[in-house]
């Protein structure tokens, strides 16, 4: 009998474990599922049977939300801002990180660049309005690109430094013997090896830019320049009582980031843990 006790105990334990894990998974997923289901209903159905599947799926909600709220434009704005930010951010931080980890180390500069990790974006809102007024970039998407680049520099340098440090120095030496200059070494030798670091920075910075609301609220005012976050925050007002439409707008707005997450999951997870390990 005694032989059997342990396996039985373990089976129970393992069952409890899977029940807990599944329950949490349901709590994480169900809210989204509810919104997706409700996006195919009209108001009466949402009020009457909020938990039932739609009787006749109303795909027209999606058509109306897509055209009515001008989501396509907001989406394009967000894409434009995020991609431009990423390109600039990656170019400048990988160059800076290359110098600070492999060519000329500087503790003062390391410290200076790490300061930004502690600074909440709120601290930059008021001055940034003024700065972009002086630069004649009020209500201009470029202002968002510049600010998103600036606020992401600290953590990007941090992660990039971690990757650059681990590249063996023999690589540089071999390239120098072959007659490469610093710039060539950076471009042909270091950058290709640092790709995982770049992917990590890109994924995390993308999420930061894509999900920001505050900077957009402060720097952008005209509707045709609004980013997707700003458009979502306006959804509540424009579809105040048409819940099906509201849900459809919500689904459209989160689909890109969900797809991106599923595609680049490895980088996201690596980024989260790399960021934490190297702290």
């Amino acid at each position, binding site marked *: 009998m005694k032989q059997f006790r342990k396996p039985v105990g373990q089976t129970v334990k393992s069952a409890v*474990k899977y029940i*807990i894990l599944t329950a949490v998974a349901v709590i*994480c997923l169900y809210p989204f599922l*509810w919104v997706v289901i409700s996006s195919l209903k009209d108001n009466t159905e949402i009020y009457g049977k909020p938990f039932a599947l739609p009787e006749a799926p109303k795909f027209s909600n999606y058509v109306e939300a897509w055209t009515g709220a001008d989501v396509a434009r907001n989406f394009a704005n967000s894409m434009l801002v995020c991609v431009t930010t990423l390109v600039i951010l990656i170019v400048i931080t990988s160059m*800076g990180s290359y110098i600070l980890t492999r060519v000329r180390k500087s503790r003062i500069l390391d410290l200076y660049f790490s300061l930004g990790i502690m600074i*909440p974006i709120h601290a930059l809102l008021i001055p940034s309005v003024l700065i972009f007024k002086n630069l004649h970039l009020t209500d201009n998407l470029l202002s968002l690109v510049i600010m998103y680049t600036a606020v992401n520099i600290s953590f990007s340098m941090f992660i990039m430094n971690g990757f650059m440090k681990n590249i063996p120095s023999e690589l540089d030496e071999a390239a120098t013997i072959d007659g490469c200059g610093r710039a060539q070494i950076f471009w042909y030798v270091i950058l290709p090896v640092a790709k995982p670091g770049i992917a990590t920075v890109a994924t995390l910075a993308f999420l930061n830019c894509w999900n920001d609301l505050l900077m957009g609220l402060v720097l952008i005012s005209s509707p045709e320049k609004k980013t997707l976050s700003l458009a979502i925050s306006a959804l509540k007002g424009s579809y105040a009582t048409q819940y099906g439409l509201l849900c459809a707008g919500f689904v459209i707005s989160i689909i890109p980031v969900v797809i991106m997450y599923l595609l680049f999951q490895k980088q996201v997870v690596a980024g989260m843990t790399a960021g934490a390990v190297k702290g």
Partner: protein
Amino acid sequence: MKKKKHMAVVIAFLLPVFVIYTAFLFIPLVQTAFYSLTEWNGITEKIYVGFDNYKELFGSSDYWLVFWNTIQLVVITLLIQIPAGLILAYLLYMKTKGMKIFRTIYFLPVVIAPVAISLMFSLFYNSEIGVFNRILEMIGLGAFQTNWLSNTDTLLYAVMAPQVWQYIGLYVTIFLGALQSVPSELVESAQIDGAGQVKTFFHVILPQIAGFSNICIILCITGSLKAFEHSWIMTGGGPGVRSSYLGVYMYKTAFVNSDFGTGSAITMTIVALSLVITLIVNAVFSAREKD
């Protein structure tokens, strides 16, 4: 000649990142510190008033209400997110089938914009559809039904809930990464020595991942101090400032009431708080490491 060229490359590579960082992060930060000492509505000339803004803030009951709201958020996220994250990560770590699928699901809310999450929860709290209230009724807790976002007893916690819910997955992922980095020989040798699972966890695994807990605690605290969207979207921080955090109070003061001086002063208190708390947490952890 070669040396000169070498320096030129160093400067050319460092300059862009240095200039953007300095011009758009460091200088604005200094400017905010300066604005906090002025009275200024954004249009007229700034008037230097010394520490008057701070005196006014620290004497205002609104500020302290918002301050305690923020501290409550910090404490609640710490007490829920860190333990939940650690426990779930440990469950996933113990030879769980489908570990990656669970992790993918848990992390999903983290990547979605807080503004979208807030919109979703305001639908759930909505008194007309009342998803939450109906669920309570279904599980026999109908007595607890209330108008979550207008009842002043529940308001603040109803605003906090989505934020707590959204970011648990972040800590699961970080702790799982931490657990996977613990050398398996350590765990095995402890078990050979007769340590049970609980003992192994507290005496072998936990000390190994202490560094990660440090990071998670700091992430948790700074995240709460920056909190904005959930409160702003669901209630606008109201009624009055009842469901505001410092970030919301700052935004309202500066950009709704056009009081940039006081807004900057509030910001400086957020920066100071986050620096002080981070230093304390770091000091506590490094002191413990020395023991």
